[in-house]
């Protein structure tokens, strides 16, 4: 019944990895019936829930496509609304192609940056893992919301926003729509990395936790704003102010 804590004492390890996994938990059991039954129940519950939903909630189906009738707002499916939200704040090439491309490449690169196998199979890695996750989520959310609000309401002559404000003060389009957004999008994770390293003496894995949390929290915030808080003309509104149905009046 040696717990991991006891074992780590015995081997004299002093790192602060979470040792919450009991030795008992690592004993092998037969896949049949132990795992197969869990999988079967999971599949059945999923099928049941989806069936209930399919009975009671109708899949959206509006009137026939009409190229003449542009709905206001026109929105992509929910999982792309984060990108559509970015589209409001920067050059379309950046929001629509470069950022999502970079996100995919960086996601794929995670195991090649964090190469140590130490910490495999442990939820949140170390005692610092959870605090770092929470801090990163809050830090990212505040930055995201702050930038969205400033870009929505910063007065710039006839319009509002950071790019129009910069252009009003004589900066070029490329500077306002490409350079400045890139600076923000690199500064936020970079500053997060520095803070986490200084405040927690984080190792690479813990920094990676901060980076992934930055990605996930940004995805959540942008998706939620894009889905529930963007109304006519993609203006920032309350969810109940978004025109419904989305294709305009029947």
């Amino acid at each position, binding site marked *: 019944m040696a717990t*991991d804590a006891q074992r780590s004492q015995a081997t004299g*390890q002093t790192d602060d990895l979470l*040792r919450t*996994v009991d030795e008992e*938990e*690592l004993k*092998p*059991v*037969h*896949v*049949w*019936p*132990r*795992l*197969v039954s*869990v999988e079967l129940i*999971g*599949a059945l519950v*999923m*099928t049941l829930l*989806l069936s209930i*939903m*399919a*009975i009671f909630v*109708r*899949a*959206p*189906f*509006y009137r*026939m*496509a*009409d*190229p003449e*009738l542009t*709905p206001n707002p*026109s*929105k992509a*499916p929910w*999982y*792309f609304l984060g990108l559509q939200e970015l*589209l409001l704040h920067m050059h*379309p090439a950046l929001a*629509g*192609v*470069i950022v999502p491309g970079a996100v*995919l490449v960086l*996601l*794929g690169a*995670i195991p*090649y940056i964090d190469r140590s*196998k*130490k*910490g*495999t*199979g*442990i*939820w949140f890695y170390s005692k610092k*893992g959870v605090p770092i*996750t929470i801090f990163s989520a809050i830090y990212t959310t505040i930055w995201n919301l702050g930038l969205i609000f400033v870009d929505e309401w910063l007065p710039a002559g006839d319009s509002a926003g950071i790019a129009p404000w910069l252009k009003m003060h004589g900066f070029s389009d490329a500077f306002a729509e490409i350079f400045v957004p890139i600076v923000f999008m690199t500064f936020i994770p970079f500053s997060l990395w520095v803070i986490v390293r200084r405040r927690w003496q984080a190792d690479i894995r813990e920094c990676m*936790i901060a980076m992934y949390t930055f990605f996930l929290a940004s995805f959540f915030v942008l998706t939620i704003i894009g889905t529930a808080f963007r109304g006519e003309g993609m203006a920032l509104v309350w969810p109940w102010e978004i025109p419904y149905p989305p294709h305009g009046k029947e």
Partner: protein
Amino acid sequence: MRGIGPLCGEGVIGMPHGAKVWQGGLGCEMSVWKYITQSRFWKSIYRNPYPRDRRTRAMVVLNSLALHLHPVRVPVRATRITYTWGLGGLATWTFVLLTLTGVFLMWYYIPTTEDAYWTIVKLETGVMFGSFLRNMHRWAAHAMVIAVILHMTRVFYTGAYKPPRDFNWVIGVSLLLVTLLLSFSGYLLPWDQLAYWAISVGMEMGGATPLIGKQVRMALLGGFEIGQQTLIRWYTLHVIFLPLSTILLMATHFWRVRKDGNISTPVYEDDDEEKRRAVERRRQARG
């Protein structure tokens, strides 16, 4: 006649007490079961008896196409909901549901700009279970996207992407991309206002690709605007190319899970620490 059916007691055909088989009595019902499970046909499908002991529990996993994706035994923890949340399995299962309901939708759907919309109207109003299965397809598609994102998040926070599972993580990221494309390509097919304008937003984004924006837009639309060519392109991607890619990637993903040491178990040391400890142990052993 005897000897053909080794049924209840002495066999059912021509035997007066054989009628008991159908009249009840647990013993006799069991014999029907026995008759089925001992038939040559049944045994040709299932090579081993119902798994009740160590040997047969191993055999059932090794001898079944569906089950052999698993190892014979896993750590207790792998069976705990709180470790994996079953998310990879659920994502796979939603894909199965989507394939089944998708085939049904394909029976009725016609991918032309004139017919697409009306075939769905007909499906919803005039086909038994039509509305139910279309709804199911839609909600399962969202469920799959959510399951895949959550699965990736689970794998990340448990550190299960670390070597030797590093390349499987890359395959997983590709599966995320393919899942999103599958869902998005299906979005256009109903040819209603929601579909049309969601795709036009998507095309605006794709068209903004630096340097090759025009070409990308042209490739995605099949022309200068969303029309018949676009519909047929996205339909073909949705029902053939992307599902096949997904199946191929999933097969690789599952195979790699097995090759990379099955489900992740806690690792407390990196390679260097392990080596150092091994050297120390050897030195101590020498005395």
